[in-house]
């Protein structure tokens, strides 16, 4: 049973189903779209259950030749990293769709685009053929562009075009890199070109070529992440997008960048990765501090969360290029956690925006008295985003900081300041919005309804669950990231440092940290 093809196909089939709903029955669109978006979640949960930790790294392998001569194939597989990326994707899409109840204008088109977007994102995380990967990576732009430009707020046309241009310029370099690498890989297997990731891994690439290819790939992914100084598209796109668009952008689309760095840059260009790692780590740390500092001064609550994404994604990049097992595990974990916490914050902002139609912090005040349930969930999400212990954000960021301390101690310490700044901007925002005298503009607002609470529950449960017991996730992530590091060790003279003494005294390095953190 080709589960992975099925997983990618389900949202597209769903989109077709929604598109074919009779125009005379507009009320069917929402429930049907929500229903079909749950199907991929079921498949990915099945994959989680069936994924065997002890067996080979890549499972559910599928292979179908598209062009023999050009070496292009429909090649899909799941490892510990992509497993959680698809889980995150299939979880956030039904939630984002459920949160789109307030969309009244052209709802059918909206849902069709959302489902197409889901299928495309799943393709990104599953493809191991670089042309197929690129195809999904690029096509994601179109539904997102339309979602922002058709349902966004005031400056939507500007934000949508900026989003497309930034990412498309990046993907132009990516395509050049893929083609050059494909032509090189073709020589090793005797075809015109080969875009199979496994063939590319076996291709001998000179140091100079690695450097240029790393830059070509890295530029595309760095823009997507977005890494400082390529982040300027993000605040506009996130702020102008409709709620579900922001959730998906922050929760899933940004992860395509960090996933690409992990999956392709580190494995295909190990020499260049080792050489350039400090530079990228520095950019990551600049992003952490810059994003946090910018978030503090934002007068717009949605823009504040958008800048906080720049900061959080900086942690992931730092963890990726610290090149230690702990930091990499932390990065992958933080990808999941950031998707949940920032997704939650954007959902909450969307809920209040539906009521007040303003995002300016100054328009709020004393909201906790008017909407106590809302305030509680918001405070919880803010804590999770700021990395409060026992919540998922803490596990990710702390593991990254500890792991990167081994190779980049100074950067790790500076990045630690980002955690403090996160508490500053989130709690200060909370204070201004929820405490103090009740602003007349928010008086009499209805608190969260059953549907809105139901949307938040899965996120809250997962944030707590992963925060208290991250082991199931870490167990699957660890072999995947260690195979990346093994490859770097095997092909370069870099040696991955580890916590030898933790093993000596009989503790697993991971659980040691978490116990320390919770204590």
């Amino acid at each position, binding site marked *: 049973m080709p589960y992975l093809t099925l997983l990618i196909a389900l949202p597209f089939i769903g989109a077709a189903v929604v598109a074919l709903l009779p125009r005379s029955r507009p009320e069917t669109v929402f429930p049907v779209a929500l229903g079909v978006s749950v199907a991929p979640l079921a498949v990915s949960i099945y994959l989680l259950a069936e994924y065997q930790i002890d067996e080979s790294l890549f499972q559910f392998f599928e292979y179908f030749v*598209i*062009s023999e*001569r*050009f070496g292009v194939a429909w090649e899909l597989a799941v490892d510990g990293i992509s497993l959680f990326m698809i889980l995150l994707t299939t979880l956030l899409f039904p939630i984002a769709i459920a949160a789109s109840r307030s969309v009244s204008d052209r709802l059918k088109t909206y849902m069709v685009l959302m489902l197409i977007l889901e299928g495309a994102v799943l393709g990104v995380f599953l493809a191991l053929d670089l*042309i197929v990967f*690129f*195809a*999904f990576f*690029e*096509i994601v*732009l*179109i539904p997102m*562009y*339309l979602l922002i*430009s*058709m349902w966004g707020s005031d400056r939507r*046309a500007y934000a*949508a*075009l900026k989003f*497309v*241009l930034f990412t*498309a*310029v990046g*993907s*132009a*370099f990516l*395509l*050049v890199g893929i*083609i*050059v690498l*494909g*032509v090189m890989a*073709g020589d090793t297997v005797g075809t*015109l*070109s080969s875009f199979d990731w496994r063939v590319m891994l076996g291709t001998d690439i000179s140091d100079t070529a690695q450097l240029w290819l790393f830059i070509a790939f890295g530029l595309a992914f760095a823009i997507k992440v977005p890494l400082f100084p390529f982040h300027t598209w993000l605040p506009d796109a996130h702020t102008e997008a409709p709620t579900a668009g922001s959730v998906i952008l922050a929760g899933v689309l940004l992860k395509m960048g960090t996933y690409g760095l992990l999956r392709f840059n580190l494995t295909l260009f190990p020499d260049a990765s080792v050489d350039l790692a400090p530079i990228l780590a520095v950019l990551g740390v600049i992003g952490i501090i810059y994003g946090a500092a910018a978030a503090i001064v934002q007068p717009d609550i949605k823009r504040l969360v958008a800048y906080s994404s720049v900061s959080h994604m900086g942690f992931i990049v730092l963890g990726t290029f610290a090149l230690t097992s702990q930091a990499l595990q932390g990065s992958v974990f933080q990808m999941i956690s950031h998707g949940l916490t920032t997704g939650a914050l954007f959902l909450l902002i969307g809920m209040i925006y539906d009521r007040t139609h303003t995002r300016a912090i100054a328009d709020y005040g004393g909201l906790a008295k008017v909407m106590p349930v809302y305030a509680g969930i918001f405070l919880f999400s803010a804590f999770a985003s700021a990395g409060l212990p026992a919540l998922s954000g803490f596990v990710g960021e702390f593991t990254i900081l500890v792991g990167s301390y081994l190779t980049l101690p100074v950067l790790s310490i500076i990045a630690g300041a980002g955690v403090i700044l996160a508490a500053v901007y989130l709690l200060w925002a909370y204070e201004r919005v929820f405490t103090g005298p009740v602003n007349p503009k928010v008086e009499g607002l209805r608190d969260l309804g059953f549907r809105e609470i139901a949307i938040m529950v899965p996120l809250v449960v997962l944030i707590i669950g992963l925060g208290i017991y991250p082991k199931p996730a870490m167990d699957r992530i660890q072999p995947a990231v260690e195979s990346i590091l093994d490859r770097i060790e095997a092909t370069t003279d870099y040696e991955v440092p580890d916590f030898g003494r933790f093993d000596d005294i009989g503790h697993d390095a991971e659980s040691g940290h978490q116990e320390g953190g919770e204590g």
Partner: protein
Amino acid sequence: MQSAAWLPVAFEVTLLGGALAVLLVAVVAERNRSLWGPVAGLAFAVAAVMGLWQWVEVESGGAGLFFSSDGLAFTRSPMVVMDSFSALAAMILGSVGFVAFLASWDLQVKLGKRAAEFSALLLLAVAGLHMMAATPNLVVIFIGLETASIAFYVIAGFTRKVRGSDESALKYFLLGSLASSLFLYGVALTFAATGSLTIYGGNSIRDFFSSQVVTEPGILLAGLALMLVGLMFKVSAAPFHQWAPDVYQGAPSAAVGMMAAGVKVAGFAALARIFLGGMISQIDSWAPVVAVIAAISMVLGTVMALVQDDIKRMLAYSGVAHAGYLLTTIVAGVPGLEAMWFYLATYAFMIVGAFAVVSVVGGPGAAATPIASFKNLASRSPETAWLMAIIMLGMSGMPFFAGFVGKVLAFVTVGEAGYLWLVVIGTLTTVVGLVFYLRVVATMFAKDDDVQEPLVVSVNTRFAVIIAAVVTFVFGVVPWPLLDVVRSALPL
């Protein structure tokens, strides 16, 4: 082969017969378009089937050269070649011609009894176009080129009462004639340098290069350059493109699609046949020049398309960029042929579909059609808007649409040939190109309460647009059947 000695010219014969039949029927049944309309449509369909027949015949019996005559040395050479290359050209031209004919139906309704002449001219043009692809003889290429060009000059000026149509036809005629004469001069100089007018067969240009030392490199290079310039003009590659925006804008919308698509298919087929078939041993002397033309076309076409407010001018400039992408496949040499055919086959449908939509929105005989007139198309005619979106995304080279496959194949082969800088220019201009294609999409889906009345699309046009969009989408998602076909479409 004995059973079908006429098969090598079956495509041309069918279309010429169709043209005659249309004119005759039109004389008999002067106003009754329902009588001779189907005749013309049928001629296109039968011609496409003839292409398929040729393909099957070549696949089983092999390719061949035909119609040589005794006499002077330079005429004792084959006039027609039937190989998978020409058969594929026939299939593409026949089917695209059929779709374009459907798309021009509204225009024909408007033209009244002059529509018979229009149909006949369209049939003649396509016959001439295929002649360019199906001959090893440089002079016959010229004859095909002129047959098609003269027909298109007339078509461009067919709606003379519409402002711009006159100008379009005159400009096309003057500049087109110059290009044709440059090509002919190039043929003459090539003959002077090599002593041959044919690409294959006895005493051919190919023989010359394999057995002789080039004694007159200056004359040969001048000949190559002039032929190149002549064909570059026809396919509207920069800097020989200046006619295209004005001609496209002034000519009746419903007819521009075939003008753009057909000339590109035939022009590139002839280019590939001459340069990859006959002059492949000289690739080092012409490929760098073609590479530069390709780069200029991609950059100039893309940049100029950005600033256009008229969709026909925008499509004309985007056609310049597409000529550039197609030229990269020529630079790549013989391995690029597969990419070239895939690109041509899909682009031809896309451009015909795009102009069909333009003719729906602006009117079939209209000249200027501002992009702003696409406002609110999504609510005026949702189906047309979605199909146009597919075509636009296909042209922009978005993945899962045919344009992406063509571009990737082109870039891979030209990268393999060592022209990395062309790959970089190609991908970057593709990104910039997104801006103007997405602008059309965004305009269609933008809300505008001023234009509300539903847009009525006739059945024929609708069918044409659907075919174009289906080709764009299906060969983008499932490219391998077409890849299998184009892979074997090699010149003799």
